[in-house]
């Protein structure tokens, strides 16, 4: 009973498009306001009620931000950390996720319970012990200090396990009959089927790492290890008054790479099972 999955042909439903468009407008409004706001002056941003279109649009906020920041360095740091962390999560979490979903081994339930348990512990409670650990290991003010603690996450394991549990188990048996080694089965047979799940995990992990603020702030001791969000917060938040223009320009800058990553990963949504031709 094997067949080729076809992209569904859908009648266009005008009412659904209408509904989705209305929803889209409501959903995107703050985002659009953020982008438009980054072209406004501080005075205009403090007006009540706020304006939608900039009265006098200008790039001043961006010019000020980039002339004051060593942008290249921060961008590099953020990218390096986010890419390594995302790669680590994609590889290591899918490995464990597969073991938990498909293989049978002693201690499996304990391991899964342990992972689920730590997923549920509020992060704030482990922050200080984690920092002391990283400081004692001499990793303060280094990029590895920013990456290592986030290289794997219980969230990723749970996500991959839940996805793989829905994959056909007979693929495993069939591959074993063909004499493939266990690791080979994972990398060659199952991993390619996980496109949508890996894309989702990639987007979420990249976003989380890219926006992480408190950890890089605390671990970085000099500006060479600052990441973008830390650097962007430097001049926008003050002791008493917030520079809204700089803040919105910074927020817009920091979000663009995330959208790019989203667009790259989301192509993989339509792959996975659908393209393997077997089911």
């Amino acid at each position: 009973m094997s067949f080729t999955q076809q992209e569904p042909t859908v009648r266009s439903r005008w009412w659904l498009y209408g509904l989705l468009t209305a929803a889209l407008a409501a959903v995107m409004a703050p985002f659009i306001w953020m982008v438009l706001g980054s072209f406004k002056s501080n005075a205009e941003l403090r007006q009540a009620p706020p304006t939608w279109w900039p009265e006098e649009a200008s790039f001043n906020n961006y010019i000020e931000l980039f002339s004051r920041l060593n942008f290249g360095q921060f961008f590099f740091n953020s990218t390096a950390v986010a890419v390594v962390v995302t790669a680590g999560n994609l590889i290591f979490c899918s490995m464990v996720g597969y073991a938990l979903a498909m293989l049978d081994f002693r201690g499996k339930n304990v391991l899964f319970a342990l992972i689920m348990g730590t997923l549920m512990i509020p992060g704030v409670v482990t922050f200080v012990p984690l920092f002391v650990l990283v400081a004692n290991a001499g990793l303060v003010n280094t990029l590895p200090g920013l990456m290592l603690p986030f290289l794997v996450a219980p969230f990723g394991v749970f996500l991959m396990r839940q996805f793989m549990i829905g994959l056909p188990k007979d693929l495993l048996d069939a591959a074993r009959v063909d004499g493939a080694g266990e690791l080979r089965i994972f990398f060659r047979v199952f991993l390619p089927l996980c496109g949508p799940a890996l894309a989702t995990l990639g987007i979420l992990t990249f976003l989380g790492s890219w926006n992480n603020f408190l950890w890089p702030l605390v671990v970085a001791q000099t500006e060479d290890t600052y990441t973008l969000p830390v650097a962007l917060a430097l001049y926008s938040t003050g002791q008493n008054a917030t520079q809204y223009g700089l803040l919105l320009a910074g927020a817009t800058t920091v979000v663009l790479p995330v959208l790019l990553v989203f667009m790259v990963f989301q192509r993989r949504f339509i792959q996975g099972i659908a393209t393997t031709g077997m089911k």
Partner: protein
Amino acid sequence: MRSTRMMLALTAGTALVLTGCGRDDGGSGTDAAPETGEEISTEDVAGEIDVWAMGAEGEKLPDLAEQFEDAHDGVTVNVTAIPWDSAHDKFTTSITAGTTPDVAMVGTTWMGEFAGLDALDPAPGSIDSSAFFEGAQETAVVDGTAYGVPWYVETRLVYYRTDIAEEAGYTEVPTDWEGFRQMAADMQEKGGAEWGISLQPGGVGSWQTVLPLAWTNGAEIAGEDAYQFDTPEVAEAVEYYQSFFTDGIANPSPPEGQTEADFTSGDVPMFISGPWMRGIVEDMGGEGFAEQYDVAPIPVPEGGTSSSFVGGSNLAVFQQTDNRDTAWAFVEWLTEPETQVTWFEETANLPSVQSAWEDDALASDEKLTAFGTQLETAQAPPSFPTWEEVVTSFDTEMEKVAKAEADPQEALDAVQAQAESIGTGQ
């Protein structure tokens, strides 16, 4: 190397769990420290120091530090700028892990906490504490010992719309409590304003509005080693504060972040805030707005004394520094009157050193002079390590007073009970 250290860290931690624990009696807290730290030697000023400073200060300090480097051969000052956002968390975690810098800019209300963590180095006696505004200097003193110096200061004044005040029949702001409230009411009735004044109705930071009123009424918030929130002086001030809400002069639930906009539009023609607001309202009000408003001192009750809140930032040297002489020499240099004037010109931060205010750059600005005058009597909250925690309960109770018509004395009794159960932390 790294992996060995990591292993060590892990074993040390395991020991922690296995050996159990117990508090060393008398070992906790700050032991009585001397009033001043050891003297520094000016001959040993050399080598590198790491300095942390927040936001714009961190950005502009390197230029200023260059002058210090020029004057001292062989000195390198490495400045790291830190965002204000979460700066406090960065400091406390760094203190915990022993990764502090040599010198840092420290918020005035953090001094008690950091000194309580045994993180700060007592200031040497060579720094003349009488050169600073008294209220500002007190923020650096914890349990009798100065752990730093004021770097720059700010204080709060009443901002009011002169044009609307005139319509209501006022050419200047009455300096007494009753007259002041009447003026706010008149601006609302005769001046066409929606509300007479914008006062923060409790909530985070509202103590900065309420406590100055208590201070003008002669209140002492803290004794030697205890909080005193339930005195009649404080209660009267809170009653006065509450009357603005119950009389309908101030809005008990104003929309967030609209104070400046309401001020320039004339909807709410008075508020109490610091010097940074000048730039903001003049920016928003457009050309000529500077002539439409003025600043006035915090009103004082009959028989009371002038006061306000003093804020700003201090400079402190961390105990873990391995270049103490250079660190303090740099701090001393930053508080010389000439350096302070240069710093004012660079950043608009108000000098903490009184004599710097005689310079033309400051003395020629009338509104600025008003801030300078208020600074002479402005006060700071007690530098107990638990201040931030205690004041949170104060802020919560003030919200009940402003919004839910809670009885001021009962509210203060609740604050006092909380304060006593928390303790001073010293």
